[in-house]
């Protein structure tokens, strides 16, 4: 039987060949470029840690970092709260809501649309003078003056956050729903006997038991959120206007490399982004799991 095990190598070979060429090598090459002043053509000159020194002092990178977090954070808080409320509504035996699959589909729909289409659509819907949103809001009398959504840092960032929420709350809802349906009914029966009310049941039973699911949503959303690119790129002028408020980390990376031809520096930006992702994922993980060793065995 033993000789059969060499098939193992054959089975995983295609994966590793492609993985080495298209994953590992580019990552290593980028690492090398981060120590050079490569400009996209010609030769790359090694400049030591100059790019990293610049990165640490670069206020645009810092700005991009905070922008990315702000936009992601607001969106995540909103989306998780909406998802939890919806899940509570649909899992409550006393209310017995109908139409779960209908609502689930409708809520999920925005998530399927190509992000660049979404960006373009909102770009023109949110237009200051002639956007349909301002027209509708003015018609029904909510505002008297058109809001220049994409021209003020706060409203622009808020717009991106809300668009992200719009795109993702349905997804989170589905995942939370899956988590809720996995909770054993014994817990609720026990709670019932103890005379717990709805709120207590939710905070004492549902929420703690949903922790792994919420963590899953958070980590996947965080990884996606830190790579926010399409929306800010296409919603305004592609360099982070207004006032640099939509300058996200990946957008900054893209512009440094492909617009300003600073490939070497952009490579350093990429590694900066990576280190930040690792640190914050670790913090998130630790803060949610730090005290509960028993759950830490889960993958």
């Amino acid at each position: 039987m033993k000789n059969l095990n060499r098939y193992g190598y054959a089975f995983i070979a295609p994966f590793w060949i492609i993985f080495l060429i298209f994953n590992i090598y580019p990552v290593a090459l980028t690492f090398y470029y981060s120590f050079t002043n490569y400009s996209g053509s010609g030769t790359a000159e090694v400049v030591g840690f100059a790019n990293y020194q610049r990165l640490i002092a670069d206020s645009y990178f810092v700005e991009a970092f905070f922008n990315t977090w702000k936009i992601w954070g607001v969106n995540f808080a909103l989306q998780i709260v909406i998802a939890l409320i919806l899940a509570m509504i649909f899992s409550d035996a006393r209310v017995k809501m109908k139409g779960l699959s209908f609502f689930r589909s409708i809520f999920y729909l925005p998530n399927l649309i190509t992000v660049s289409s979404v960006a373009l659509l909102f770009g023109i819907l949110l237009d200051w003078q002639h956007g349909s949103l301002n027209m509708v809001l003015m018609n029904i009398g909510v505002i008297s003056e058109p809001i220049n959504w994409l021209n003020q840092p706060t409203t622009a960032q808020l717009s991106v956050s809300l668009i992200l929420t719009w795109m993702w709350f349905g997804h989170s809802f589905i995942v939370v729903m899956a988590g809720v349906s996995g909770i054993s009914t014994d817990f609720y029966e026990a709670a019932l006997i103890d005379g717990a009310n709805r709120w207590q049941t939710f905070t004492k039973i549902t929420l703690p038991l949903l922790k792994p699911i919420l963590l899953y949503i958070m980590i996947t959303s965080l990884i996606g959120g830190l790579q926010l690119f399409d929306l800010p790129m296409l919603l305004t002028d592609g360099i982070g206007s207004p006032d640099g408020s939509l300058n996200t980390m990946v957008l900054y990376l893209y512009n440094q490399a492909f617009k300003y031809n600073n490939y070497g520096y952009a490579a350093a930006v990429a590694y900066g982004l990576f280190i930040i992702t690792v640190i914050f994922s670790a913090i998130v993980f630790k803060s949610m799991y730090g005290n509960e060793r028993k759950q830490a065995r889960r993958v």
Partner: protein
Amino acid sequence: MKKVIGLMMSLVLLFGILAGCSNSESSGEAKGDKDVDLKVWSFTDELKKPITKFEEKNGVKIELTIVPIADYPTKLKPVLESGVGAPDVFTGEIAFLKQWVNAGYWENLSENPYNVNELADNYVPYVFDLGKDENGDVRALSWQTTPGGIYYKRSIAKEVLGTDDPDEIGEMLTSMDKVFEVSEKMKEKGYRMFPDEGSIRWFSQGDDPQAWVNEKDELKLTDQKIEFLDYAKKLREESYTALAPEWSPSWFEAMDKPIKVKENGDETETEVFSYVLPTWGLHSVLKTNVEDSVGDWAVTSGPSPYFWGGTWLGVYNKSENKELAYDFVKMMTQDDEFLTDWAKETGDVLSYLPVTNEIKGDFSDEFLGGQNNYQFFLEQAKSIEPGIVTKYDQQLDTFYGNAVQEYVDGKKSKDEAIAEFYKKAQNAYPELKVPKK
């Protein structure tokens, strides 16, 4: 299992339907790929008609690829670098022309068999010079010269200013102060002077335009450019514009029709009096968007002369069909017959003197109510200063435009806006020497 198969089936089905759709739609270009003799890349559709003409004349097929100008350099550069799917002829806009004549992608036209230097006297000098690389070899040619003016509506001029004569109107606009006087009169009668604040940016260079970056790599923000901040702000505060940003749908719409402006809590309908555009603005912007007010337009000079844009074209040096490629360049830049027709048809102001000398005397454009815009623009062309073009222009213009916008919107003070501009320029181009502020 069944569900999975069902899923796969529906995917395949969807794929089939769409592939079918797209085939019938796009067969023209996709299948025509093999018998294309020449590939041309550009950033506007203005070459469409000349290409059709060239195809008819020579019995060849040309494929024109249009990439929006914002992405044009980013997309074209790697294509030229690698040569994969590269065009035989490609155009360059003035904003990145400097970068490209020196990049070595364009064939050297000063050498055999082209020897364009012999034709140097046939061109408006600055146009010919801009196509040269750092060694003085010609890499690209242009058929046009692009001095600018102010296009305005005759009917509104008559009503508000009492005359529609271009010379008289030009007299009323010789300085920014005078421009504001006219703007105030327009406002009183319910019109708006310009579509947006950016309209006046070309006048910010004043009578002595300076390059963004000088030979020592120093970034220069002239006093005039700084003054522009205040002018732009005044336009906004006094409601002299229709809040229709350049190239936006409302900007185009306002050329021909009344437009609604929402400000200070109410909505007013107004008309825009003038657009600040250069020669090509006439045929590729105004004429293509205006239907109702044809003949009601005229062009005059603003506070200071300026030029804006311009398309150069040359032959890709790795092209496999250089001869035909150069034939096309030749038609666009040296063919008397074609250029005469082109000028008469579009009103584009040519840089090819044998033709301009021939037609400038009795040129008149219906769209401009019979005005001789040729004479006007050729006069303006004399004051063009080509030395101010640098390879940084495209990005720096964008950055400065943003700074002005932020100041106009009241989000930043003047100093902050300028400091921000310097910072952005330094960040994108570490090699620049930026004033410390």
